């Protein structure tokens, strides 16, 4: 069914389904293992060691998955900076994925740090090291979640509050809404600035490791590559979520929006690959990509997984088919995730005899935190007007004025 998405609707469907139980129990298992980790120590639960001290939690749940969580950032740039208001109906979906991506990333980080109680000292800016890229990432990410994502994700919740029979609650909802409405441009500007800073700095983090990161990945241009990859993966994540939701809940296919996102994602990907290869040639290490050793194979795999879908999606017949669109976007996403994941693990070589492969408990926790995001997504789209839908007969679950302006 082709339909133009024009508004956000709540899904009136039962919450407790089999997939819900699956994701919720995976999430519960992760938190149980997390509790065990807090009572014993990182070494008992993870495969981390003194050589590879960063593993799945930081490299996958934070570095890779917050790139997937950049959907809100990427779509907001399209909607507001480039004045493409037709993307407004998918803003809520994009912002929710961002919130869940960042939120679960930060939960994973909470279990990963060894001495979390010292976060108390984080409240005193005197303790911040201005030269530390990690401090910049920590401050920007926290500020982004607290000041930008929280505010941007508020309207669906205010809407429900407004609809409550208690007039006091409705009045409160209106009061908060008007406060947000008045200051919204300043929050959104923050939502452009902060991810630009921390998504590039996530790459900048590895620049301090110098020659420990293999030259195919270690470059002074690593912040730029990380930032552009955040746009690519952000768009990809929104595409995948929309396609999956449409398949599962029959929201119709707004091919106009989907194709535009795809085109943009494909073009940024090609530009990204061009920048990466030009940088390799400029630094004189391009030949390393064709050594066909361990590093070269990973590098070429990543290029292949990005380039092939990006080129195929250039053809209209391939991108106007939801099935192929999903498959190609999925491959491209995997390629992008490999890039974001590589510099701290595959391309990282400490001195000495160290090997790292995540332990089973670590993998379960990592999957569990992502499942937690999926669980919350399922609750949110069934309780709040998040997902886009075509205009049609009015249902009780649609976004209401004036909250739909946000």
């Amino acid at each position, binding site marked *: 069914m082709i339909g133009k998405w024009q508004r956000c609707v709540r899904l009136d469907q039962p919450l407790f389904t089999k997939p819900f139980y699956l994701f919720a129990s995976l999430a519960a298992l992760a938190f149980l293992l997390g509790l065990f980790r807090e009572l014993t120590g990182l070494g008992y639960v993870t495969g*981390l060691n003194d050589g590879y001290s960063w593993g799945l939690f930081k490299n996958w749940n934070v570095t890779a998955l917050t790139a997937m969580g950049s959907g809100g950032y990427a779509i907001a740039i399209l909607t507001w900076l480039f004045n493409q208001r037709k993307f407004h109906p998918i803003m809520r979906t994009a912002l929710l994925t961002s919130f869940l991506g960042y939120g679960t990333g930060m939960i994973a980080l909470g279990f990963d740090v060894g001495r979390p109680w010292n976060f108390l000292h984080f409240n005193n800016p005197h303790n911040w090291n201005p030269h530390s890229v990690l401090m910049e990432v920590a401050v920007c990410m926290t500020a982004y979640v607290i000041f930008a994502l929280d505010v941007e994700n508020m309207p669906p919740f205010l809407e429900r509050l407004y609809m409550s029979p208690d007039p006091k609650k409705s009045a409160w909802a209106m009061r908060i809404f008007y406060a947000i409405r008045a200051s919204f441009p300043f929050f959104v500007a923050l939502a452009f600035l902060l991810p630009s800073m921390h998504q590039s700095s996530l790459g900048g983090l590895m620049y301090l490791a110098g020659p420990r990161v293999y030259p195919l990945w270690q470059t002074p241009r690593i912040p730029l590559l990380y930032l552009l990859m955040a746009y690519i993966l952000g768009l990809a994540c929104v595409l995948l979520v929309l396609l999956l939701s449409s398949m599962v809940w029959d929201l119709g296919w707004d091919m106009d929006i989907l194709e535009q996102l795809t085109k943009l994602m494909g073009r940024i990907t090609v530009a990204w690959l061009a920048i990466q290869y030009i940088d390799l040639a400029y630094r004189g290490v391009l030949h390393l990509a064709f050594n066909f050793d361990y590093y070269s194979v990973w590098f070429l795999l990543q290029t292949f997984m990005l380039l092939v879908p990006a080129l195929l999606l250039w053809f209209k017949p391939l991108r106007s088919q939801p099935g192929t669109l999903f498959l190609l976007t999925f491959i491209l996403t995997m390629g992008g995730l490999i890039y974001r994941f590589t510099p701290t693990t595959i391309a990282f070589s400490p001195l000495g005899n160290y090997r790292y492969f995540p332990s089973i408990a670590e993998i379960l926790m990592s999957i569990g935190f992502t499942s937690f995001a999926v669980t919350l997504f399922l609750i949110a789209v069934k309780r709040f007007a998040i997902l886009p839908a075509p205009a049609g007969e009015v249902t009780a679950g649609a976004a209401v004025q004036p909250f739909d302006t946000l």
Partner: protein
Amino acid sequence: MDVNRRDILKGLLGGSAIAGVVATAIPAAGRDSDAIEPVPDAVGLLYDATKCIGCRACMPACQNANGLTPDRGGSGGLYMQPDTLNAHTKNIIKLYTSADGHEKSFMKQQCMHCVDPACVSGCPMNALHKEPEGVVGWNPSLCIGCRYCQIACPFNIPKFEWDKVNPKIVKCELCRHIVGTTVSQPACTKVCPTHAVVYGKRTDLLAEAHRRIQADPGKYFEDRVYGEFEAGGTQCLVLSHVDYAKLGLPTLGKQSAPAQVRQMSEFIYRGFLTPIVLYGGLAGIMHYRWKHHLIHTETSQHHEGDPAAKPEQEKNA
């Protein structure tokens, strides 16, 4: 009302051009100060592998001085026998033997106390810091256990207590908790029977190293001291007749990684000017867009028939 995009892009380009000019006009003083000089009183160690007899007396001395439990892993639990630096071992003597067995050298491994340490530069909370005499110290009350120091250190020195609920970062701090109060030098130099490792000011140690090289040219590898320039200079220096790379000392450039990161950050952030200009521009555009968005949506009628929407006046009454 609609596409003023071109104007806005022009404005953005103009704005960033101005920001660029302003930023480049700021004196390039930042560039020169990227390199950090050792403090005048900087202390360190000089380890001469040609004098080391491999008695390993420095290792239990280090254990005792720092209250570490001995790592008995390599001996089947009989005696202290660590195979590498770890959460129980801040100092170790290793033996390098070439494949043909002819070339041999001992190697003492501990924190190099860099002049411009990557761990200190990366540490988000200043838990790792430079003491007044240049010793790289660790402050347990600020460390959040993020382990970025382990990612950053080119010598792979900081170790983490993986099996503890309250894990610490373990690394040589040149016995800073006792030197100057109960003793005059670290435990390892104090017990060394051949003075293969000596403690002193970096300037004195460097002069001594060069004196030894000049006294016997060709004795030491490439007639150079490891740590004089590597990674911006280290306060612990190494002399050996064997290629330093074979002893596990990485081949590093003269510029420290932190200096490179500072340059990169300065290039992007221009002393925090970029984020401020960017925020101003973005907030300006958003303000304009938002005004028009509100006019467009709040005057459009397509939600009128929504029975779910209660009349606003009634709600606010």
